[in-house]
Every structure is written in structure tokens, then in C-alpha cells.
């Protein structure tokens, strides 16, 4: 990793490149000054934060930040980049946490936030068409003004773009009812590496071969750049009815989740916290019995239906030792659901990261136990906390927070890398998926072959090679082949 001072000294302008791109997007939309390049050299991967706080560039500086304003300009930039072998990283709001937007060598960053229009709302068909660079919070507010919700409400709602949601196959906090983003995308427009336009016309369902939509949803900019999406939208719920519970232990809480989902009840929110994450949320809650674990469920929609679903869920949870609790933790969660918990820890030198995986109901208790044991065995002073927050009939997402205490940088990075390896290796060993909704980016690359299998990983590489023979689209991400001389992120050097 390069010290910022050295990167700054070497950051002379590339006039030929800037001129060529200005010819497409206009001079004002090619930003090649050091501050612009520095800002675009990181996303919110904690590893990038660890570098930044030590005055290091996580990978390299991009050659320039380019801001196209239309789909056509995106296509023209890509055609130019393809012809000139210049790698390109699409960039939404940079809230990705796996290093997917980090430049590794010679890239331009294509900042998509000028593509920020809500194009159309079709109330009859329940669809909204939106440009990829629109801010999530502004999109949801624009829908709310017309009586709708997208149903995709990630914690990062206000700090991410719609295109970033699709690119990373994200999940919102209400996903248990509305699904992940891949369940909401009905159509899209995208551009391939050579500037070819692709449109997946919105249709409720089709039977015309493999889904082209899914080439783009989850591709993290490696197979194409999404410029517009048509998403399913919903009438805003008439009621949102919370059910605050505690359970004797996580096994009974998870069993309740399984039974609720398999009974075809659809809470908008299902959140179960382990004992570590329960403690701070219940410390002021009158009558809360220490040792029990907290769950927040919310049923939403038509009031009578939501109320009935809540009653039916109550029958299930009662049978498993569930106990109703005061709603203070729910109100606290509502008030802070779109905030970030990490800045104070990163500011004080901790090595904090999160890892979200998918596990089957039959394995989650074991996953939690073995992963906690592995992390605390690695570093007895570490914090390990987990919750389960996106539930399905087959299993749920286990979202873990690992926080290592301040220590010398080399030790912190080594332990951080080891912690990731333990969590991801154990996930595969126990039959889960290494990523539920943050994507793979750069940092999950080492475990992608284990996730996909050798045949699957080779197939993904072949698709990449066919669509992007020059390897210009976000090279080196998703475990795909990088370009020669690419920077390493993580270890020193």
C-alpha cells in the first residue's frame, strides 16, 4: 500500500485521457485532481478504513473520476475504454463494504450519481423505473410522496444508490416480507464492456432461456454497468405491528423463526439477537430476565391481515418459551435503523468488521457457536456479536460483528485476515453461503472458488472472458482474474 504523500507526489494529470473523456461527458465531469482521486480510492470496506486512518491508499488512486449524465454517455465511455484498454470501475455512493470499488491499477472511476432521476411510476402495474445513480433515501422518499414503498430499506438506505443495491444483490431490513433486491428487479438497462446496450424489458415473468437480468444483478460491475432499473413497488402499509419478544436461548428463537417462515407467515422484520447483542439493547428494559435473547418482529400491510399474522406468530412463539417484552428496543431500532455503528470504533483504532453469511435452519445454532468460539480463540479480547435478520423458509442470514482491540497495524491486519478466513471457511464447511447481501467485492475473492465450486468458478470466469475479453470492467473483483501488476490490498506490499 502506498503512503498518501507518495501517491500525491506521483499524481500528475493525464491530459490525453482527460481530454478524450471530456469529449464525451464534458470538461466539468472529468475530475482528475488529487482530492477527487483520493476520495474515489476507497469504499467503506473496513480494510480501506484501516489504510486511510494510517495515511495509506488502500489500492491505488484512479486515473480520473468521470461523471456521465445519461445511459448513452455510459455506453460511449465504455466503448472508448474498451478501444483504449482502460479499466473502469462503476461507482455509486461507495458504501460497499467488500472493496468492490477500490482501484487496483490504471482504472478510471465511473461515478454514476448524475443518473439520478425517478423515470416513471406505473401505479397500475406496481412498478417504478429509476436511474441507477439515484440515492436510495431520495428514491424511497419520492415513492412515499406517491403513496408507495420499494420495500428495500437497507441500513445504508441514505448512503447508497439503487444501482449499488442491484450490483451487490443487497437486502433491506424488510426483506423477510419483500425479498432481497433480486426479488424486486423486474427489468433493467445495462451496458457491456464494449459499449453494447442491453435491455431486459420489464415483464412479470418469462420463459426465454436463462435470466439475462441475473448476469447483471450481483455482478458488482464486472460484467456490465447497470444504468436503470424497473423495480416492483408496493402501496405503503396501512399498519406496522411490532411484536417484541425474548426467548430462553437462541435455539428456541431460531426455531420460532423457522416455524413462522414455514407456516407462510411473512413478518416484514425478523431480528433475533444473540446474548452479546441482546445485552446493550435490554439493559434498561424493566423486567428483562438476564440470559434471555431479544427478538423484534414486525407485521405490516393491511391492518386486519397483519394483526392476524401477529396472532398466529404469537401462538408459535408462546409454545417455544417466547415472552412479550416492552417495546423500547423496537423504538430505539426504528430511530437508528439507518445509522452506522462503526465510526467511533474505527476512530479509536479498533479493527471492526462485519460478516454476513447464509445458513440453513438446521445449522445456525452450530454455526454461531463454532464461529464465536473460533473468533474468541483467535483473540480473547475480541468482541463477537451476532443477529439473524433476513429469514426464509430454508434458513436465515447470520450477521456477525467482529471487533478486535487496538494493536500495532501489522498484528491487527493479520488477525483481521485470520478472522475472515475462519468465518468464511467454517461457513462453507457447514453448507452455508459466504455472503448473504454485502457481495464479494475484492475481499471475498479468496473464498469464491469454495463457494461456487471449481466448475462454477471456472464458468463465471468464462462468462467474464466472453463478455469482457479485455478485462476492463472492475477487474480482479468477485474472485475473477485481475490485470497484470494489480495492487494488493490487505497485507503490506
Amino acid at each position, binding site marked *: 500500500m502506498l503512503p498518501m504523500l507518495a501517491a500525491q507526489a506521483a499524481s500528475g494529470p493525464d491530459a490525453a485521457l482527460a481530454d478524450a473523456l471530456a469529449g464525451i461527458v464534458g470538461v466539468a465531469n472529468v475530475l482528475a*485532481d488529487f*482530492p*477527487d482521486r*483520493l476520495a474515489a480510492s476507497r469504499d467503506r470496506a473496513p480494510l480501506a478504513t484501516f489504510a*486511510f486512518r494510517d*495515511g495509506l491508499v488502500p489500492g491505488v488512486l484512479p486515473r480520473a473520476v468521470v461523471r456521465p449524465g445519461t445511459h448513452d454517455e455510459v455506453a460511449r465511455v465504455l466503448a472508448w475504454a474498451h478501444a483504449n484498454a482502460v479499466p473502469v470501475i462503476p461507482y455509486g*455512493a461507495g458504501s460497499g463494504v467488500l472493496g468492490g470499488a477500490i482501484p487496483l491499477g490504471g482504472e478510471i472511476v465511473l461515478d454514476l450519481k448524475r443518473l439520478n432521476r425517478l423515470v416513471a411510476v406505473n401505479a397500475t402495474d406496481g412498478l417504478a423505473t429509476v436511474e441507477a445513480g439515484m440515492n436510495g433515501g*431520495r428514491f424511497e422518499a419520492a415513492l412515499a410522496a406517491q403513496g408507495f414503498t420499494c420495500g428495500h430499506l437497507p441500513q445504508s438506505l441514505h448512503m447508497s444508490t439503487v444501482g449499488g443495491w442491484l450490483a451487490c444483490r443487497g437486502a433491506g431490513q424488510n426483506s423477510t416480507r419483500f425479498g432481497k433486491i433480486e426479488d424486486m428487479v423486474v427489468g433493467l438497462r445495462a451496458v457491456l464492456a464494449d459499449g453494447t446496450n442491453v435491455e431486459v424489458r420489464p415483464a412479470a415473468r418469462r420463459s426465454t432461456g436463462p435470466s439475462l437480468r441475473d448476469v447483471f444483478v450481483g455482478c458488482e460491475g464486472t460484467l456490465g454497468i447497470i444504468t436503470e432499473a424497473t423495480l416492483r413497488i408496493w402501496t405503503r402499509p396501512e399498519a406496522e405491528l411490532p411484536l417484541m419478544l425474548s426467548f430462553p436461548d437462541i435455539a428456541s428463537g431460531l426455531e420460532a423463526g423457522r416455524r413462522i417462515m414455514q407456516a407462510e407467515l411473512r413478518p416484514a422484520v425478523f431480528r433475533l439477537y444473540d446474548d452479546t447483542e441482546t445485552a446493550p439493547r435490554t439493559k434498561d428494559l424493566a423486567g428483562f430476565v438476564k440470559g434471555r435473547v431479544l427478538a423484534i418482529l414486525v407485521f405490516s400491510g393491511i391492518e386486519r391481515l397483519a394483526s392476524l399474522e401477529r396472532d398466529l406468530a404469537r401462538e408459535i412463539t408462546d409454545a417455544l418459551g417466547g415472552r412479550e417484552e416492552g417495546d423500547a428496543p423496537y423504538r430505539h431500532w426504528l430511530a437508528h435503523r439507518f445509522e452506522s455503528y462503526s465510526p467511533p470504533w474505527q476512530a479509536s483504532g479498533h479493527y471492526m468488521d462485519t460478516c454476513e453469511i447464509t445458513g440453513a435452519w438446521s445449522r445456525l445454532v452450530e454455526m454461531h457457536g463454532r464461529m464465536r468460539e473460533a473468533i474468541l480463540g483467535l483473540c480473547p479480547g475480541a468482541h463477537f456479536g451476532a443477529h439473524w435478520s433476513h429469514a426464509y423458509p430454508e434458513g436465515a442470514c447470520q450477521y456477525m460483528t467482529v471487533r478486535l482491540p487496538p494493536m500495532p497495524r501489522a498484528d491487527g491486519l493479520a488477525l483481521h485476515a485470520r478472522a475472515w478466513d475462519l468465518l468464511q471457511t467454517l461457513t462453507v464447511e457447514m453448507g452455508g453461503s459466504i455472503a448473504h447481501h454485502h457481495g464479494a467485492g475484492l475481499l471475498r475473492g479468496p473464498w469464491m472458488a469454495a463457494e461456487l465450486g471449481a466448475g462454477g468458478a471456472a464458468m463465471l470466469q468464462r462468462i467474464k472472458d466472453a463478455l469482457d475479453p479485455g478485462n476492463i470492467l472492475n477487474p480482479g473483483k468477485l474472485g475473477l482474474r485481475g490485470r497484470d501488476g494489480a495492487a494488493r490490498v490487505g497485507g503490506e506490499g
Partner: protein
Amino acid sequence: MADAMATLRFCAWCPNLCRSAWPDGAPQREASTPSALSALTLMLAERRVAPDASIAAALGDTAMAEACRAACPYGYDIPAAVAAVAGAAHAG
């Protein structure tokens, strides 16, 4: 000054959760987000980057941080913190 540094140190690692306060029609410059301004100011104060015209111009572009101020759930005033710390760094 210590307070301003602490503010910047928090904001630099905050993922711009106030950014949706910036209007759609206005140009979005990643380097002008509150978090990017805070990080750059911090780097300047810690002498991890050298002062130059482009940094001075970037730190002077506080329109977005100003627009996002009311949306900061922590109540930070980033333009003020940037001015206090960057001013001292330039003077020093």
C-alpha cells in the same frame, strides 16, 4: 481544536449517512461529501498529504457538507471543523 479533530476523526469513517440531504439536481462530487472533506482535512493536519492548490480548493467546497449538516444524526458541523483544522494546518 481538539474537539474539531475528534469530530473529523469520527466523520472521516462515517459512510456519509447524511448525503441524501443533497438535492438531486446539484452535481455530486465525492470529494465534497462531509466524510471525504473530513478525511482530507485529517490527512492534512497529520501531514499525510502536502498542502497544494487542489486541496485548498477541495476544502473550500463545503456546499454539500453545509447542505447535509441538518441531516447529521450526531449533530456535527463539518464545515466549521474543516475550517478550524485546515486553517490551523495551513497557518502552521
